[in-house]
Protein backbone atom coordinates (compact mmCIF):
# COMPACT_ATOMS: atom_id res chain seq x y z
CA UNK A 1 0.00 0.00 0.00
CA UNK A 2 2.66 2.43 1.07
CA UNK A 3 4.75 1.46 -1.96
CA UNK A 4 1.85 2.38 -4.25
CA UNK A 5 1.48 5.76 -2.56
CA UNK A 6 5.21 6.48 -2.79
CA UNK A 7 5.39 5.47 -6.46
CA UNK A 8 2.30 7.51 -7.33
CA UNK A 9 3.73 10.59 -5.59
CA UNK A 10 7.08 10.18 -7.35
CA UNK A 11 5.39 9.88 -10.75
CA UNK A 12 3.23 12.95 -10.06
CA UNK A 13 6.26 14.90 -8.87
CA UNK A 14 8.32 13.93 -11.90
CA UNK A 15 5.45 14.86 -14.22
CA UNK A 16 5.07 18.33 -12.72
CA UNK A 17 8.81 18.95 -12.72
CA UNK A 18 8.88 17.92 -16.38
CA UNK A 19 5.99 20.26 -17.23
CA UNK A 20 7.77 23.06 -15.41
CA UNK A 21 10.90 22.59 -17.49
CA UNK A 22 8.78 22.23 -20.62
CA UNK A 23 7.39 25.67 -19.83
CA UNK A 24 10.92 27.03 -19.91
CA UNK A 25 11.27 25.86 -23.49
CA UNK A 26 7.78 26.58 -24.79
CA UNK A 27 6.53 29.88 -23.42
CA UNK A 28 6.85 33.09 -25.37
CA UNK A 29 9.06 35.55 -23.56
CA UNK A 30 11.37 35.80 -20.57
CA UNK A 31 8.68 36.87 -18.10
CA UNK A 32 6.30 34.07 -19.07
CA UNK A 33 9.11 31.57 -18.74
CA UNK A 34 9.60 32.63 -15.14
CA UNK A 35 6.18 31.15 -14.32
CA UNK A 36 7.22 27.59 -15.13
CA UNK A 37 9.97 27.06 -12.55
CA UNK A 38 8.29 29.04 -9.76
CA UNK A 39 5.05 27.06 -9.81
CA UNK A 40 4.95 23.75 -11.59
CA UNK A 41 8.23 22.90 -9.91
CA UNK A 42 6.95 23.75 -6.43
CA UNK A 43 4.30 21.04 -6.59
CA UNK A 44 6.73 18.67 -8.30
CA UNK A 45 9.33 18.99 -5.57
CA UNK A 46 6.52 18.98 -2.98
CA UNK A 47 5.22 15.56 -4.05
CA UNK A 48 8.74 14.13 -4.22
CA UNK A 49 9.38 15.35 -0.67
CA UNK A 50 6.11 13.88 0.64
CA UNK A 51 7.11 10.59 -0.98
CA UNK A 52 10.47 10.88 0.77
CA UNK A 53 8.82 11.52 4.16
CA UNK A 54 6.54 8.48 3.74
CA UNK A 55 9.35 6.21 2.57
CA UNK A 56 11.89 7.08 5.27
CA UNK A 57 9.35 7.29 8.07
CA UNK A 58 8.05 3.78 7.36
CA UNK A 59 11.41 2.16 6.67
CA UNK A 60 12.25 1.82 10.35
CA UNK A 61 14.64 4.62 11.23
CA UNK A 62 12.05 6.83 12.90
CA UNK A 63 10.15 9.85 11.64
CA UNK A 64 12.06 11.90 9.08
CA UNK A 65 11.24 15.60 8.98
CA UNK A 66 14.18 17.00 7.03
CA UNK A 67 11.85 17.43 4.10
CA UNK A 68 9.75 20.03 5.91
CA UNK A 69 12.81 22.27 5.95
CA UNK A 70 13.47 21.71 2.25
CA UNK A 71 9.87 22.75 1.51
CA UNK A 72 10.17 25.81 3.74
CA UNK A 73 13.42 26.99 2.16
CA UNK A 74 12.09 26.32 -1.33
CA UNK A 75 8.93 28.33 -0.70
CA UNK A 76 10.96 31.22 0.65
CA UNK A 77 13.70 31.27 -1.99
CA UNK A 78 11.87 30.41 -5.24
CA UNK A 79 9.71 33.58 -5.32
CA UNK A 80 12.63 35.76 -4.25
CA UNK A 81 14.85 34.58 -7.10
CA UNK A 82 11.95 34.91 -9.56
CA UNK A 83 11.30 38.47 -8.33
CA UNK A 84 14.97 39.42 -8.69
CA UNK A 85 15.19 37.91 -12.19
CA UNK A 86 12.05 39.78 -13.28
CA UNK A 87 13.32 43.01 -11.75
CA UNK A 88 16.68 42.77 -13.50
CA UNK A 89 14.95 41.87 -16.79
CA UNK A 90 12.72 44.96 -16.48
CA UNK A 91 15.75 47.09 -15.71
CA UNK A 92 17.64 45.82 -18.75
CA UNK A 93 14.56 46.12 -20.97
CA UNK A 94 14.39 42.46 -21.99
CA UNK A 95 11.95 41.85 -24.86
CA UNK A 96 8.42 41.22 -23.64
CA UNK A 97 5.13 40.23 -25.26
CA UNK A 98 3.15 42.35 -22.84
CA UNK A 99 3.88 46.08 -23.10
CA UNK A 100 6.32 47.03 -20.35
CA UNK A 101 4.63 49.20 -17.71
CA UNK A 102 5.11 52.97 -17.71
CA UNK A 103 5.97 53.13 -13.99
CA UNK A 104 9.25 51.29 -14.52
CA UNK A 105 10.22 53.50 -17.43
CA UNK A 106 9.70 56.65 -15.40
CA UNK A 107 11.53 55.19 -12.39
CA UNK A 108 14.47 54.22 -14.54
CA UNK A 109 14.61 57.81 -15.72
CA UNK A 110 17.38 59.14 -17.90
CA UNK A 111 20.02 56.51 -17.16
CA UNK A 112 17.74 53.78 -18.52
CA UNK A 113 17.73 55.17 -22.04
CA UNK A 114 21.37 54.27 -22.61
CA UNK A 115 21.11 50.71 -21.32
CA UNK A 116 17.90 50.15 -23.26
CA UNK A 117 19.51 50.20 -26.69
CA UNK A 118 22.46 48.15 -25.58
CA UNK A 119 20.47 45.28 -24.13
CA UNK A 120 17.39 45.12 -26.34
CA UNK A 121 18.75 42.80 -29.10
CA UNK A 122 19.72 39.96 -26.78
CA UNK A 123 16.20 39.79 -25.34
CA UNK A 124 15.32 36.11 -25.07
CA UNK A 125 18.54 34.67 -26.44
CA UNK A 126 21.75 34.17 -24.55
CA UNK A 127 20.91 36.63 -21.77
CA UNK A 128 17.81 34.76 -20.64
CA UNK A 129 19.35 31.31 -20.79
CA UNK A 130 22.40 32.22 -18.76
CA UNK A 131 20.24 33.82 -16.08
CA UNK A 132 18.14 30.67 -15.96
CA UNK A 133 21.13 28.49 -15.25
CA UNK A 134 21.95 30.34 -12.05
CA UNK A 135 18.32 30.75 -10.97
Amino acid at each position, binding site marked *: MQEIAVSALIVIGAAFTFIGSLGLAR*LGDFYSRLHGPTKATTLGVGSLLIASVIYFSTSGSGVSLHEV*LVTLFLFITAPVSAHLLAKVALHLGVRSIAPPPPQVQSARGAEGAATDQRSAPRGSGSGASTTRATG
Partner: protein
Amino acid sequence: MLRHWLPHPLLTLTLVLVWLLLVNSFTLAQALLGLFLGWIIPLFTLRFWPDRVRIARPWWLVFFLVKVLWDILVANLAVALLILGGQRYTRPAFVPVPLELRTELAISILANTVSLTPGTVSAWLSPDRRTLLVHGLRVRDPDALAREIKGRYERPLRDIFEPPC
Protein backbone atom coordinates in the same frame (compact mmCIF):
# COMPACT_ATOMS: atom_id res chain seq x y z
CA MET B 1 16.63 44.52 29.98
CA LEU B 2 14.93 41.45 28.50
CA ARG B 3 14.56 43.35 25.27
CA HIS B 4 18.28 43.94 25.18
CA TRP B 5 19.29 40.31 25.61
CA LEU B 6 16.43 38.75 23.65
CA PRO B 7 15.68 41.19 20.83
CA HIS B 8 13.67 38.82 18.63
CA PRO B 9 11.83 36.07 20.53
CA LEU B 10 10.05 34.88 17.38
CA LEU B 11 13.32 34.58 15.49
CA THR B 12 14.82 32.65 18.41
CA LEU B 13 11.91 30.21 18.40
CA THR B 14 12.16 29.72 14.62
CA LEU B 15 15.90 29.11 14.82
CA VAL B 16 15.47 26.48 17.55
CA LEU B 17 12.89 24.67 15.43
CA VAL B 18 15.03 24.89 12.29
CA TRP B 19 18.04 23.56 14.21
CA LEU B 20 16.10 20.60 15.60
CA LEU B 21 14.80 19.77 12.13
CA LEU B 22 18.27 20.12 10.62
CA VAL B 23 19.90 17.65 13.00
CA ASN B 24 16.74 15.51 12.83
CA SER B 25 17.01 14.37 16.45
CA PHE B 26 15.02 15.69 19.38
CA THR B 27 17.34 15.13 22.35
CA LEU B 28 17.88 17.48 25.28
CA ALA B 29 21.47 18.21 24.19
CA GLN B 30 20.39 19.27 20.73
CA ALA B 31 17.55 21.37 22.18
CA LEU B 32 20.05 23.20 24.42
CA LEU B 33 22.44 23.75 21.52
CA GLY B 34 19.49 24.99 19.44
CA LEU B 35 18.48 27.40 22.20
CA PHE B 36 22.04 28.70 22.42
CA LEU B 37 22.19 29.27 18.64
CA GLY B 38 18.72 30.82 18.70
CA TRP B 39 19.92 33.23 21.36
CA ILE B 40 23.31 34.16 19.88
CA ILE B 41 22.41 34.47 16.17
CA PRO B 42 19.80 37.25 16.61
CA LEU B 43 22.33 39.18 18.73
CA PHE B 44 24.97 38.98 16.00
CA THR B 45 22.56 39.82 13.17
CA LEU B 46 20.81 42.61 15.04
CA ARG B 47 21.73 45.18 12.40
CA PHE B 48 19.68 43.37 9.76
CA TRP B 49 16.58 43.36 11.94
CA PRO B 50 16.10 46.87 13.25
CA ASP B 51 12.38 46.47 14.01
CA ARG B 52 10.80 43.84 16.14
CA VAL B 53 8.37 41.63 14.21
CA ARG B 54 4.84 42.03 15.49
CA ILE B 55 2.16 39.52 14.62
CA ALA B 56 -1.08 40.87 15.96
CA ARG B 57 -3.20 37.82 15.21
CA PRO B 58 -1.06 34.67 14.98
CA TRP B 59 -4.02 32.33 14.45
CA TRP B 60 -5.15 34.16 11.36
CA LEU B 61 -1.71 33.47 9.96
CA VAL B 62 -2.46 29.73 10.15
CA PHE B 63 -5.67 30.16 8.15
CA PHE B 64 -3.81 32.33 5.68
CA LEU B 65 -1.15 29.63 5.23
CA VAL B 66 -3.77 26.93 4.60
CA LYS B 67 -5.50 29.13 2.04
CA VAL B 68 -2.20 29.89 0.28
CA LEU B 69 -1.22 26.21 0.22
CA TRP B 70 -4.53 25.36 -1.43
CA ASP B 71 -4.02 28.18 -3.95
CA ILE B 72 -0.54 26.86 -4.72
CA LEU B 73 -2.04 23.49 -5.55
CA VAL B 74 -4.58 25.07 -7.90
CA ALA B 75 -1.89 27.35 -9.37
CA ASN B 76 0.25 24.38 -10.26
CA LEU B 77 -2.57 22.66 -12.13
CA ALA B 78 -3.58 25.86 -13.93
CA VAL B 79 -0.05 26.72 -15.01
CA ALA B 80 0.62 23.12 -16.05
CA LEU B 81 -2.45 23.21 -18.31
CA LEU B 82 -1.38 26.57 -19.75
CA ILE B 83 2.09 25.24 -20.53
CA LEU B 84 0.72 22.09 -22.15
CA GLY B 85 -1.84 24.12 -24.09
CA GLY B 86 0.91 26.28 -25.50
CA GLN B 87 1.29 29.91 -26.31
CA ARG B 88 -2.14 30.35 -27.88
CA TYR B 89 -3.77 30.37 -24.48
CA THR B 90 -1.42 32.73 -22.70
CA ARG B 91 -2.03 36.44 -22.62
CA PRO B 92 0.77 37.93 -20.55
CA ALA B 93 0.38 41.39 -19.05
CA PHE B 94 1.90 43.60 -16.39
CA VAL B 95 -0.60 44.66 -13.74
CA PRO B 96 0.19 47.38 -11.20
CA VAL B 97 -1.28 46.65 -7.77
CA PRO B 98 -1.51 49.64 -5.42
CA LEU B 99 -0.33 48.63 -1.96
CA GLU B 100 -1.86 49.59 1.34
CA LEU B 101 0.57 47.51 3.38
CA ARG B 102 3.38 49.47 5.01
CA THR B 103 5.37 46.91 6.98
CA GLU B 104 8.35 45.51 5.09
CA LEU B 105 7.71 41.97 6.28
CA ALA B 106 4.07 42.11 5.19
CA ILE B 107 5.00 43.45 1.75
CA SER B 108 7.58 40.72 1.20
CA ILE B 109 5.13 38.04 2.31
CA LEU B 110 2.56 39.45 -0.12
CA ALA B 111 5.11 39.46 -2.95
CA ASN B 112 6.11 35.88 -2.17
CA THR B 113 2.49 34.78 -2.04
CA VAL B 114 1.75 36.42 -5.38
CA SER B 115 4.70 34.63 -6.94
CA LEU B 116 3.58 31.26 -5.61
CA THR B 117 -0.08 31.51 -6.67
CA PRO B 118 -2.12 31.27 -9.90
CA GLY B 119 -0.26 32.50 -12.95
CA THR B 120 1.30 35.56 -11.35
CA VAL B 121 4.87 36.59 -10.52
CA SER B 122 5.69 39.73 -8.59
CA ALA B 123 8.11 41.52 -10.87
CA TRP B 124 8.87 44.94 -9.46
CA LEU B 125 8.26 47.08 -6.41
CA SER B 126 8.20 50.82 -6.93
CA PRO B 127 10.89 52.73 -5.00
CA ASP B 128 8.26 54.39 -2.78
CA ARG B 129 6.79 50.93 -1.97
CA ARG B 130 3.31 51.90 -2.98
CA THR B 131 2.93 49.83 -6.14
CA LEU B 132 3.70 46.18 -6.72
CA LEU B 133 4.04 45.25 -10.36
CA VAL B 134 2.68 41.79 -11.08
CA HIS B 135 3.27 39.82 -14.26
CA GLY B 136 0.32 37.60 -15.11
CA LEU B 137 0.50 34.67 -17.51
CA ARG B 138 -3.11 34.88 -18.66
CA VAL B 139 -4.74 38.20 -17.89
CA ARG B 140 -8.20 38.89 -19.28
CA ASP B 141 -9.08 41.78 -16.98
CA PRO B 142 -6.16 43.55 -15.27
CA ASP B 143 -8.41 45.41 -12.81
CA ALA B 144 -10.08 42.19 -11.70
CA LEU B 145 -6.67 40.60 -11.09
CA ALA B 146 -5.53 43.56 -9.01
CA ARG B 147 -8.80 43.46 -7.04
CA GLU B 148 -8.42 39.73 -6.43
CA ILE B 149 -4.88 40.09 -5.12
CA LYS B 150 -5.93 42.93 -2.85
CA GLY B 151 -8.99 41.17 -1.50
CA ARG B 152 -7.64 37.66 -1.22
CA TYR B 153 -4.12 38.27 0.07
CA GLU B 154 -3.54 41.88 1.04
CA ARG B 155 -6.58 42.28 3.30
CA PRO B 156 -5.76 39.20 5.46
CA LEU B 157 -2.13 40.31 5.69
CA ARG B 158 -3.24 43.76 6.85
CA ASP B 159 -5.40 42.15 9.51
CA ILE B 160 -2.51 39.99 10.67
CA PHE B 161 0.36 42.47 10.68
CA GLU B 162 -1.20 45.92 10.74
CA PRO B 163 -4.47 45.82 12.65
CA PRO B 164 -6.29 49.16 12.82
CA CYS B 165 -5.49 50.77 16.13
